[in-house]
C-alpha cells in the first residue's frame, strides 16, 4: 500500500494530463452536438489525423537537424498546422458527409451512419497512405526523458505539465471566443434556436462550418499532444480515444462546454486511479461503470440541463 501511495501523486498528474486531452477532444463532440444535435463519430479520426500531421512536421524538423529542438518554437510549429488542417478537415467532413443529408431532410439516423462511414474512410486513407505500422514520435529530442522536476519528493515530467497547460490555454481560448465574441454569440444562438438565429440574419450554414472548424482544430491539437506523450501512433488510435472523449462529453452533459472539459479531466483521473488501485487491465471497466452510474443518477450529465428544460426553450 505504501508503494501505491508513493506513486499516487504521479498518477494524478498523469491522469490530469490525459484528462485534459480527453477534454479537448470532448469539446469537439459537444460543440457539434450543440449546434446540430448529432454525434460526429468521425471526430476521433480527426484527432488521429492531427497526430499524423504533428508526426510528419516533427519528422521534417528532425530531418533538417536544426540543432536543438527547443519546445518553445517546436510546439507551435507542430500544433498550428495540425489545428488548421484538422479544422479544415472537419469543415469538409460536415460539407460532404452531413450537410447533403440535412439539406434533404434526413432523420437523425442518416447522418450517424454517414459519420461512421466518414471515420472508416479516414482510417483507410491514413492506413493506405502511411502504412498500417505505427509511427514513432521522437519526443525525447524535444522533451528529453530526464526533464523532470521534484515536488515534495514526487518526480513529475515537464511534458505532462506542458500538456495540461496547453490544453487549459486552448480551452480558455475557446470559452473566451464562445462567451465574448460575435462569432461565439452566433454559435450559441444557432445552438439554442436555429430558426430564430436565421431570423436574426445569421448564416446558419457558416456558423455550423465554424463550429466544426473549432472543434476539429482542438481535436487536431489533442492528437499532437497525445502523440508526444505516448510516442506511438497508428491509424486506429482515434477509435478508442474518440470513444473515451465521447464518454467524457456525455459524463459532463453533452452540449455543455464546461461539462466536456470537466468530464474529460474527471475521466482521466478516474482512469489513472483505477490503473493504480485496481488493475490497469480494468481501467476501462471502471471508467464505463462510472459513466453508467453517473447517467443512472444524473441522466443529463454532471453539467447538463434536464432535457425537459431544453425542449421548452
Amino acid at each position, binding site marked *: 500500500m505504501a508503494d501505491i501511495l508513493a506513486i499516487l501523486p504521479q498518477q494524478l498528474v498523469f491522469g490530469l494530463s490525459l484528462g485534459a486531452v480527453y477534454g479537448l477532444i470532448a469539446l469537439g463532440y459537444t460543440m457539434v452536438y450543440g449546434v446540430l444535435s448529432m454525434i460526429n463519430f468521425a471526430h476521433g479520426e480527426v484527432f488521429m489525423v492531427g497526430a499524423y500531421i504533428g508526426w510528419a512536421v516533427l519528422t521534417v524538423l528532425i530531418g533538417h537537424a536544426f540543432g536543438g529542438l527547443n519546445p518553445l518554437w517546436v510546439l507551435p510549429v507542430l500544433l498550428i498546422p495540425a489545428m488548421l488542417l484538422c479544422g479544415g478537415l472537419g469543415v469538409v467532413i460536415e460539407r460532404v458527409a452531413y450537410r447533403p443529408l440535412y439539406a434533404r431532410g434526413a432523420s437523425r439516423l442518416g447522418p450517424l451512419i454517414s459519420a461512421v462511414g466518414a471515420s472508416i474512410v479516414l482510417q483507410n486513407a491514413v492506413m493506405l497512405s502511411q502504412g498500417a505500422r505505427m509511427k514513432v514520435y521522437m519526443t525525447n529530442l524535444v522533451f528529453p526523458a530526464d526533464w523532470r522536476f521534484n515536488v515534495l519528493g514526487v518526480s513529475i515530467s515537464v511534458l505532462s505539465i506542458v500538456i495540461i497547460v496547453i490544453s487549459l490555454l486552448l480551452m480558455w481560448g475557446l470559452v473566451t471566443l464562445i462567451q465574448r465574441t460575435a462569432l461565439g*454569440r452566433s454559435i450559441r444562438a444557432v445552438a439554442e434556436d436555429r430558426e430564430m438565429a436565421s*431570423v436574426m440574419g*445569421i448564416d446558419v450554414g457558416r456558423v455550423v462550418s465554424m463550429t466544426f472548424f473549432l472543434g476539429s482544430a482542438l481535436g487536431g491539437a489533442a492528437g499532437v499532444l497525445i502523440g508526444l506523450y505516448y510516442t506511438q501512433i497508428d491509424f486506429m488510435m482515434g477509435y478508442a480515444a474518440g470513444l473515451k472523449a465521447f464518454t467524457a462529453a456525455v459524463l459532463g452533459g453533452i452540449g455543455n462546454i464546461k461539462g466536456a472539459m470537466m468530464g474529460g479531466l474527471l475521466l482521466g483521473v478516474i482512469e489513472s486511479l483505477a490503473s493504480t488501485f485496481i488493475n490497469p487491465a480494468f481501467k476501462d471497466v471502471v471508467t464505463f461503470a462510472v459513466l453508467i452510474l453517473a447517467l443512472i443518477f444524473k441522466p443529463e450529465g454532471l453539467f447538463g440541463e434536464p432535457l425537459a428544460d431544453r425542449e421548452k426553450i
Partner: protein
Amino acid sequence: MLELRQIVSQYGPVIALRGVDLTVRQGEITCLLGGNAAGKSTIMKTIIGLVRPTSGTVSFEGQTLNKLPTRAIVSRGIALVPEGRRIFGRMTVWENLALGAHVRRGRPQAEIDEDIERIYGLFPRLRERVTQVAGTMSGGEQQMLAMGRALMARPRLLLLDEPSMGLSPAFVDQVFDIIQAINRQGMTILLVEQNANVALSIAQRGYVLTTGRIVASGTSAELLAADEVRHAYLGEA
C-alpha cells in the same frame, strides 16, 4: 410595400394557405385577424422565408422574396417578432439585443450602442435587466425584449405575431401603446392578433383569415362594421 399574391402553402397533405392575397402599405399598421390554425403564423413565416410557399409570390419594395434564404430577406429590411417571443433564453438581455443587430454587423459599435439606448428608452424595464439571463424574465419583459431585438435590425417592415398572447391586461395595453408609438415614428407594421378589438383600434387596415383563406378585408372602420367580423371576433351576437 409588401405584396402577397396567390400564396398557397402546404405541409405535406395539409393545405395551410389557399391562395392568399395581402398588401401592406408603407407607414400603416395592417392587422391580420383569425382564429387558431387559420394560417396567420404561416403567412408570417412565409414572408420571412421560414416556410416556402407551394405557389404564389411575396414581394417587398418590388423585389421577389420567396426564393431567398431567411437571412437575405431579413437583411432587406424585414424583422419578425415571432409567436411565443422565442428570445434566446440562455443569453443576457444585452446579448439578445446585440444579436438583433446582426444584420448590421460591420457598422460602428457606437451606432449600435446608440440604438440599444433607444430601445432602453422605449422599454425602460430592459435597462434594469441588461445582464439578466433572458429566460428568467417574465412573459411581458420577454415580449419587450423580442420587440427590442427586432427593432435593433432597423427594419422598414416589422412583423408582429400575437404580441399580446399570454400577457396580463396591463401589459397588453403597454405593448399596444408602444406598437402605436413605433408606428408613428414611421415603422410599417403587419400585426397578427386574435384580439380583434384591440388590433382594429390601432390598425388602419385589416384582413380576416379563416382556414387559409382571406374572407374579409378593408379599413379598420369597415371591418368593425362588417357582420362576419362582429360575429366571429368581437363577441357580438
